[in-house]
Structures are given as structure tokens and as C-alpha cells.
């Protein structure tokens, strides 16, 4: 495989192609007949997936540097360049986006029946934005992609969403936009500070990172600006209230994209930028404790709130807040294990929450309701859907053997040395997560069949099976054999820990009875 990929110069063109292809397809979608729109989007998504899968093999897990890099001048006057590259972390996020996209397009096959051109054009724009965020190694370029995502998402929710869509879309934009603006200010400020010191004004990630010692004095302000942007996106408690609304009102495609990709941009931002740029402040004892506490608060709090939601989508939205809390905990757990776990949660949450939203979307298409109370006993009329939902629910609950467990286990065990009490508290969520998902499962798929309107809903069709199958296979595969993924992210995690290590208050070590577990 590798020889073949090298022979076609794969590493030189793949990232650019992935970024440009959806953009090129947008005019096509707009001029071709309406019924072609979804086909174009699907073909582009599939082509991208096939091409992009080569990254899995072409990527060198042992190389700690950014790979597939390109550095072209763009706005040279300001040191802005078209700089892209990936490491193990971005690799996983890129692959996740590539895999999600065809499924999302296909799942919208029938559900989107108005303004199809616009919808699929926006999906394509979204795609470029998502990929761009994860491959950009230039702060300005990153920011452009980051903001680029906001617009299609706003319209997706606002145009194709359900009843309360405008409120949700506006809330989404205001929340995230305020965060992003602060980040822009911080980026410019950072570039200026580094420029003053080194004489080189550049938005290049490497340049800024290698001179980040300069930023230490203003680290607190800069970190807060970055952290706010990312915290809203993740979302970290208490910046999370936009998410249930956005998730609930968005069309299925929007919900899935939000859950699988957009939330991860926040945690990606912490791992890639906010913490490595300002480790002295971000990892100081107080800030660390605050972040870990907020993470754990979110984990438990959101699980409890999810438990009492009457609306299925809202329930899953809160479960997202809970899961993403694990990622934040893992980042501040600051061991290779916990960071590996955080990356794993990012991937796993994508699969299981994506699948949950797909299934809820399928239910919604049939019954035009997401109210748990409107269902009951569906396993009799839709056994395959019930099976898929139960498997997904248990994956989300963190049943060992399925994907969800790996990440959460690694986060918890890795962070335990630094925050034993907080981790113990976070671990209680194994009870609550089971409570909210099993209770929902019971009320939707089990119990007495009470609502005659559900009689004719029918089981999954072939298209729906095809959408869910890859996700279900992925759940089992990651659950039993996560090694290939862990090996590809290990270098990135190790690199990250080595970078921040000097700033960590005290690193607990394993197997040391006097120190381990307590500091």
C-alpha cells in the first residue's frame, strides 16, 4: 500500500484535494438540476473517503513531526500562509470527518425535500471547513476555516431545522461567535508579541509554538480568550446551553455533524493550541483544578439532566456534554494514557452519538416526533432498529468490548493519579449514563405498545441499514481492537505530554505506593 501511495505522490496532493474538492463541487450543485444535488454531494463524499483512507496507511505513526506538510505564502505581508499538515490527532479527526460525510449525505436522502441545492451545497462547504480546521497549521488559516463552519451550520439549523429553529440557530451563532471573536483578538495579539520578540511576524503554528515562552507574561489573558472559544464549542459547563437547542432543532445531518465533528473542534483546539501555547498558565495548579472540576461537573451534571429529558434528541445532546467532559478531564489529566483516552473518546463519541442521532432521525422521519412519551414497544414492529439502538446505547454507556469503554477507561485511569477524588466522582457516571439511556431505550423500544400511530412505522430499510452498519462495525472493532488507532495517536499524545511536562505541578508515577494516587 505504502509503495503504491508513494508512487503516485499521494502525500503531496491529498490534503489539498480533500480541501478543494467540495468547494469545486458547490457551483456544480448549484447549476445542475435539483435532483442531481444529492448525488453530487454523495459522490464527492465517497470519492473523498476513498482517497482519504490512504492517509491511514501513508501516515507514519512513529514520526513525531507534522506530516503531509505544505507551506505556501498567502498574505505574506502579515506572515499568513497556506500551511497544512497532520499528526496522529488530526489524522483521526480527518478520517472521522471523511467517514461521517457520506453517511450524513445519505441519511438526508429523503428527509430533505425543500431547497435541496442549498442544503447539499452547504454540506459541501461544511466539509471543507471541518477538514480545514483539523489540517490547518497556520493560525489565520485555522481561524478562517473555524469561522467558515459557522455559516453553513447557521443556515442548516435555521432553514431545515424543526419548529424552534431560528431561536436555536441564533443562540448557536451568538454563543460561538463571541468565543471566536475573542480568539481572533488573541491570535493577532500572539502574533504581535512573538513578532516583537523574534522579528518574524508569522501566523505559522510552529513558529508561534516554538516561541511560546514569549507569551508567558500574557498567558493568562490569551489562554482565557482561546479557552472561551473552545469551551463554548466543546461545550464545557456552563457554556453548554446552546447545544441542546441546536442539536434538537437541527436536521439530522446537522445534529450528526455537530456531534461527530464540530464539538471535537473545541477539544481539538485545547489539545492543539490553548494548552500547548500557554502551558504555564493552563496547567497551573489552580487552573488545572478548575478545568478538571468543570469537566467532572459537566460529566455528572449533564448525565443527570439527560436522565429527565422528555425529548430524545435533547437527551442525547446532554449526553454529548457528559461525554465531552471526559475529553477535557483527559486533557488535564496530563498523562499519555489520559490524553490517548481523550482522543479515543473524541472518536468513540462520534460513532455512538452519530449513530444515536441517525436513529432518532429515522424515527422522526416516520413519526415527526421526538417525544419519548409518543413511543413504546417499538421493538415489536421495528426489531432491527431496536437492535441497532440498543447496541449503540450500550456503546455510549461504555460497555467494555464496545468503543465507548476504551476512551473513558483510559481517561479515568490516566487522570486518576492527578485527580483521584474528581475521577472517582466522574466514575459515578457509569450509573447515570446507564440510567438515562436504558430508561429511554425502555420507553421507546420496550414496554407495552400503546400508541397505535406507531403501528405502521416499519423497520429499517436498506439505505438506513447501510448508514448505520459502518458505525456499528466501528463500535465493535474499536471496542475489541483499538490498537491500530492507539498506535497512530500515541506519538501525538506523547509529544504533547513531553511538551507540557515541565509545566505540570508534579507528575505522579505509577507503582509508587507513597506518591501514586495522592499528592
Amino acid at each position: 500500500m505504502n509503495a503504491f501511495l508513494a508512487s503516485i505522490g499521494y502525500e503531496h496532493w491529498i490534503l489539498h484535494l480533500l480541501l478543494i474538492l467540495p468547494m469545486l463541487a458547490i457551483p456544480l450543485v448549484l447549476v445542475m438540476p435539483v435532483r442531481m444535488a444529492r448525488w453530487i454531494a454523495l459522490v464527492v463524499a465517497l470519492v473523498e473517503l476513498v482517497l482519504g483512507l490512504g492517509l491511514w496507511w501513508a501516515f507514519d505513526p512513529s514520526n513525531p513531526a507534522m506530516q503531509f506538510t505544505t507551506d505556501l505564502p498567502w498574505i505574506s505581508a502579515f506572515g499568513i500562509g497556506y500551511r497544512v499538515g497532520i499528526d496522529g490527532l488530526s489524522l483521526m479527526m480527518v478520517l472521522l470527518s471523511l467517514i461521517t460525510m457520506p453517511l450524513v449525505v445519505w441519511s438526508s436522502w429523503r428527509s430533505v425535500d425543500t431547497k435541496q441545492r442549498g442544503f447539499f451545497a452547504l454540506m459541501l462547504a461544511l466539509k471543507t471547513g471541518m477538514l480545514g480546521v483539523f489540517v490547518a497549521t497556520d493560525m489565520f488559516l485555522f481561524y478562517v476555516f473555524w469561522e467558515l463552519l459557522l455559516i453553513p451550520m447557521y443556515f442548516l439549523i435555521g432553514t431545515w431545522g424543526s419548529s424552534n429553529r431560528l431561536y436555536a440557530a441564533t443562540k448557536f451563532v451568538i454563543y460561538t461567535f463571541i468565543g471566536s471573536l475573542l480568539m481572533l483578538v488573541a491570535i493577532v495579539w500572539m502574533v504581535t508579541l512573538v513578532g516583537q520578540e523574534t522579528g518574524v511576524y508569522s501566523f505559522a503554528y510552529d513558529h508561534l509554538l516554538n516561541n511560546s515562552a514569549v507569551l508567558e507574561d500574557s498567558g493568562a489573558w490569551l489562554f482565557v480568550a482561546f479557552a472561551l472559544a473552545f469551551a463554548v464549542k466543546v461545550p464545557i459547563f456552563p457554556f453548554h446551553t446552546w447545544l441542546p437547542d441546536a442539536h434538537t432543532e437541527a436536521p439530522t445531518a446537522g445534529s450528526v455533524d455537530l456531534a461527530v465533528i464540530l464539538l471535537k473542534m473545541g477539544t481539538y483546539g485545547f489539545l492543539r493550541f490553548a494548552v500547548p501555547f500557554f502551558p504555564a498558565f493552563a496547567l497551573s495548579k489552580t487552573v488545572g483544578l478548575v478545568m478538571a472540576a468543570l469537566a467532572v461537573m459537566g460529566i455528572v451534571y449533564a448525565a443527570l439532566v439527560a436522565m429527565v429529558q422528555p425529548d430524545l434528541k435533547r437527551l442525547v445532546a446532554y449526553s454529548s456534554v457528559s461525554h465531552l467532559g471526559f475529553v477535557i478531564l483527559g486533557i488535564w489529566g496530563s498523562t499519555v494514557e489520559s490524553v490517548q483516552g481523550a482522543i479515543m473518546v473524541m472518536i468513540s463519541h462520534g460513532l455512538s452519538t452519530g449513530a444515536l442521532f441517525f436513529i432518532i432521525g429515522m424515527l422522526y422521519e416516520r413519526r415527526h416526533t421526538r417525544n419519548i412519551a409518543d413511543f413504546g414497544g417499538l421493538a415489536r414492529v421495528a426489531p432491527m432498529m431496536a437492535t441497532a439502538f440498543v447496541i449503540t446505547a450500550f456503546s455510549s454507556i461504555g460497555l467494555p468490548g464496545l468503543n465507548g469503554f476504551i476512551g473513558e477507561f483510559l481517561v479515568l485511569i490516566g487522570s486518576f493519579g492527578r485527580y483521584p477524588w474528581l475521577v472517582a466522582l466522574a466514575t459515578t457516571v457509569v450509573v447515570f449514563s446507564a440510567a438515562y439511556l436504558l430508561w429511554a431505550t425502555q420507553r421507546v423500544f420496550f414496554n407495552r405498545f400503546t400508541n397505535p400511530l406507531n403501528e405502521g412505522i416499519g423497520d429499517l430499510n436498506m439505505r438506513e441499514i447501510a448508514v448505520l452498519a459502518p458505525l456499528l462495525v466501528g463500535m465493535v472493532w474499536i471496542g475489541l481492537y483499538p490498537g491500530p488507532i492507539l498506535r497512530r495517536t500515541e506519538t501525538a499524545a506523547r509529544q504533547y505530554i513531553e511538551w507540557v511536562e515541565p509545566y505540570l505541578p508534579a507528575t505522579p508515577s505509577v507503582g509508587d505506593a507513597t506518591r501514586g494516587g495522592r499528592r
Partner: protein
Amino acid sequence: MTQFVWLAILLPFLGALANGWLAFRRPQAKGLVSIIGPGVLLASFALSVAIWLEVRAGHGEATRVLLWQWMPVTDRLSIDLALLVDPLSTVMLLVITGVGSLIHLFSVGYMRDDQGYARYFAYLNLFVAFMLILVLGASLPVSFIGWEGVGLCSYLLIGFWFEINANSDAGKKAFLANRIGDFGVLVAMFLIWWHVGTLDYGRLATQAPAVLPYAGSTATLIALLLFLGCTGKSAQIPLFTWLPDAMAGPTPVSALIHAATMVTAGVFLVVRTGVIFALAPVAMEVVAITGALTAFFAATIALRQNDIKKVLAYSTVSQLGYMFLAVGTGAWAAGIFHLVTHAFFKALLFLGAGSVIHAMHGAQHAAHVHGDAQDMRLMGGLRRAMPWTFALMGIATLAIAGVPPLAGFWSKDEILAAAFVRGGGNPVYLTAWILGLLAALMTAFYMARLMSLTFMGRFRGGEAMQPHLHEAPWIMTGPLVVLGVLSAAGGMLNLPAFAGGSHHLEHWLEPVTKAAAPYMDVLEMPHGMVEILLVAGAVAIALAGLAFGLSSTLKSEPAAPGAAPPARGLVRLIEGKYFVDEFYQRTVVRPTVWFSTTVLWRGMDQFLVDRMAVGGTARIARGLGWLGSRLQNGHVALYVSLFAVGAALLLSALVGG
């Protein structure tokens, strides 16, 4: 064959996949399901026997079978998907696949007319696969796959007839109670890894004593957290309430999962991690007294239950208590011994009860009578219609009551002797011993009552049903016969010296239990006169209990359901199962839901964050917007100059400000 131990897991797993596929595609292909379902189990059992022979030939040498690297995270945390074949896992392997095969065969008859026949076998096969992972796992995380996997299957099988809300409730309750325990297991794993640096059983046994000081707080904490997991999985105080509800599942499921195998996993885990428990004497006392208390209280509840399965369910909780009493005294082998004999006689009792329910159900159906097929008050006199079931359940009753020379006598006797010995210098163990004795008396009583109400006297279910009562088909009675033989002769596994044995099982397990031995006082088992007195006392208790139980029910017929006056005082307390469920409902479940809804969701999320913070910000923003609109007064010059100033500021900042 040991290298192929994974096949024992893979076969039932493939069976589950095949049956699952059939459940969707060919739900009526019951013949094929009947071959695949029990077939994979029998194949697994054959393999287990071969492995057992190899382990025996190898004098109990442990073999670690590496399948693949599961979580290769870092040098210090790399978890293999590896299996451990040693004397302990071999015993469990034989019990699970052996008793499992019998129960699968029984199910072919029992579930024949069920709509979900294929689905049932898919779940049951899957359960066995997970149960084998649990006992074969070479490290805590691998066992944990099985540990939670059996919980999943238990959930699915309890709620098998999911259209009845109570069944779905029971399944969910079981999983949640188990999860509370799993919290303990997880945190225990975190502690173990940070302190000992490994989660592998083999290395844990050798390295833990070096880093965990004897009777230190860490070892105690770890042991107690692990035990919390055991109270969930094995239905001990305080997490036992899910097991009686679990009877909502099909009866063979109760036999396999909720009596013979899954619920004993906690006992297995304590023995598996015995070193840590041995390093924590306080935790050992907690284990022993919790077991004894559970044995006692569950037995009291069983005294007054009228549902045949509920009696057996509380009996199971009680017997599991004995096993924990055993391992809590450090009598590891006695705990495993009782686990094995209990698997025989309790599986027999449940399957026998299944036959009875099957017969009652069939007769009700044929006579068009509606009634509870499990209520013993509507039974009686069934010995005439079901002589085989009666005789075999009789054997099991004598076995569980502790009548020599049946299996239960030997194992229970050993547990009580161990508690007696430890009780010599420790009031905790003395109390545990007394509770154990009292529970033994009650065990004999409630079992005699069950047999008497079910099989003796006259049939109380009505004339119409009587001619339709039949013995179950051979596919159901056959497994009962095998279990009957095992219940009678199972004591042979570990006969003591006075009966001409040599504690075979104890020696068999020695390679596993010896790791903990240096940290425990030697259990000097009583000899001579004391031993004879203890044995005689135990037999007397068993016989007395049986006699009481029979006489009390034979003298007067039970009141028909609903006809008895409401009970008062202690009886009401016992009939109400001490109102533990109600207590949990009021103190835990409802407050949590209320807190989540009112305080967190409505109060925090919707009011504080959304209305006050976000809404407040929006109002401020609107205010600023109003200010901004004042500026937008059409003076283009003003705009331009503002823009220029802003741009200049930005540029100057960029270019060296």
C-alpha cells in the same frame, strides 16, 4: 488444547450471531436453533473437559493464552486480551459449560412455543460467551468485559418479554444495581494500577504484597471497592434487590444466570483477587459479615414468599451469602465448593420449578383458567402428576438443606466450620457463624414449605386444571436427572478426611489460593469431638428445619391468594421484604430524579444559565446595539473615520506597535 481455550468462547459467540441472524430472517426455523443453541454449548463443554484434563496432567500449572494486544497505550499501561487457564478458571469453565449445556437443553423444551425462540438462544449463547470471558480473563479489565457483558445479557433476558412493563423495569433495575457495583470495580482498578502498576492477575498476586502494606488503608480500600462490585453482581446487601425482580425472565434464565453462574461471579472475583483481600483483614471481616447477614435476612424473606420462583430467588441470595461468608474467612476452596454444589442443586430447583410452571401454565391454558402459574397457593399435590420432578426437586431440597450425604451438606458444613474457627478469636466471625446457623435452619424450613405447598396435599388450582397436569417432556426431565445425580454426589469433589476423602477441590485450587496464604492465619479445621459435634449439630438443624417446614404446611392449607388477613408486625415486615425497595425508591431514586429535574435542569440550566446569564448578556448586547444605532446616524464621514482609526490601530499593532 489449552491454547485453543478461546474456542470455548468463540463457539457460543458464533452461536449467538447465528441465532441472532435467524431471529431476524427465519424466526420459525426452530429446529436449526435447537441444534445451534445447545450444540455450541456442548462443544464448549467437550473442549472444557479436554482442557481440564490437560491442567490436571500439568499439576495445575497456569497457562496464559495471549489473543492480541487490546489496549497498547504506553509501556506502563498495555492491556492484553489474554486468557488465564488455571485450576480456578477450569472449575468455572466446567460448571458454566456443563450446567449451561443442561440448561440450554432444558430450554429447548421450555421455550418451544415462544415467539422469540431464536432470540432467546441468541441471548443465552451470548451470555455464556461473556461468562467465559469473565472467568478466563487474565486481567481485571478483560474479566470486566465479561463482567459487564453478562450484565448486558442478564438485562436482555430479564426483559425478554419486553412488552410487559414490569419485565423491562426489572431488567433495567438489574443493570443499574450492577453498575453501582461496577463503579467500585472501576475505581479499584484505577487504585490498583497507580499503586501496583499492573492489572494482570498473575503479576498482581506477586507484586501487590510488595507495595500494599498489610492491613493498610490502600489495600482495604481496594478490597472494599472490589467487594462493592461483588455485592452488585452477586446480589448481596445492600444491592441485592434486583435479583428477586430478575425472576421476570424465563425460568431457565433464572437457573443459569441468576442461580448457577453469573451471580456467583462476585465470589469468583474475591478468590481471583484473593491476595488483595488477604492483605486487608478488615475488608475480609466486612465480606464475611455482609455474607452472613445477607444469608440470614434473605432466608427470613424466603420464609413467607408464595411465588415459587421468589422463594428460590431469595434462597439464592441467601446461599450466595454463604459463599461470601466462606471467602471472607479465607476459606477460598469452601466458597468455590459451595459455588459448585449450589450451581447443581439450585439449577435443579429452578429447572424443576420451571417444569412445574410449565405444567401449571399448560393446564391453565388447556382448561381456560386464568391464574398465576407461579403461586404455590394454587398448586399442591403435584407429586402425582409429576413424579420425576417431585423426586428430583426432593433431592435438591435435601441437598440445599444440608442433609448428608448430599452435596450441599458438605459445602455448607465446611463454611460453617471455617466461620466457627475464625469465631474463636473474633466476635465478627462468631456473629457470622451464628447467623449462618440460623440461616441454615430457615433454609431447611422454607424449602420444606416449598416442596410441601407444591407437591403435597391436594391440588388447589381447581378441578378444571387437574386432568391437564403433566410431567414435562424428556428434553426437560433429562437435564433434571443429570443435575439430580450431581446434587446428590457433588460432595465427592471435596470430601473431608472423616468421610474418607482428601479435600480434593481444596488441593486442586491450591496453586491459585497459595498466593494469599502467607497473609492469612491458617484455618485450623476442628478435629475429633468438636468436629463430630459441629457436624451433628448441622445435621440436627437441617432435619429440624425440614420437619418444622413440613409440619407447619401440612397441618393447615394456605389461604387462597387475597383471602388471608393482612399481616402485622414482624410478619408484615418480612412479607414486605423489609421494604428495602421502597426505602431506596424514596431515598435514592425519587430524590435523584427530582434533583435532576427541578434543581439542575429547570433551575440551573434553564433559569440561571439561560435566562439570567445568557439572557442578561443578550439584554446588555441589545443595550450596546442601541448605542451603536445612535452612532449609525447616516454620517458617512463618521463611519469612515471610525473605520480608519480601527484599521490604523490594528495595523500599528501588527507592524511593530
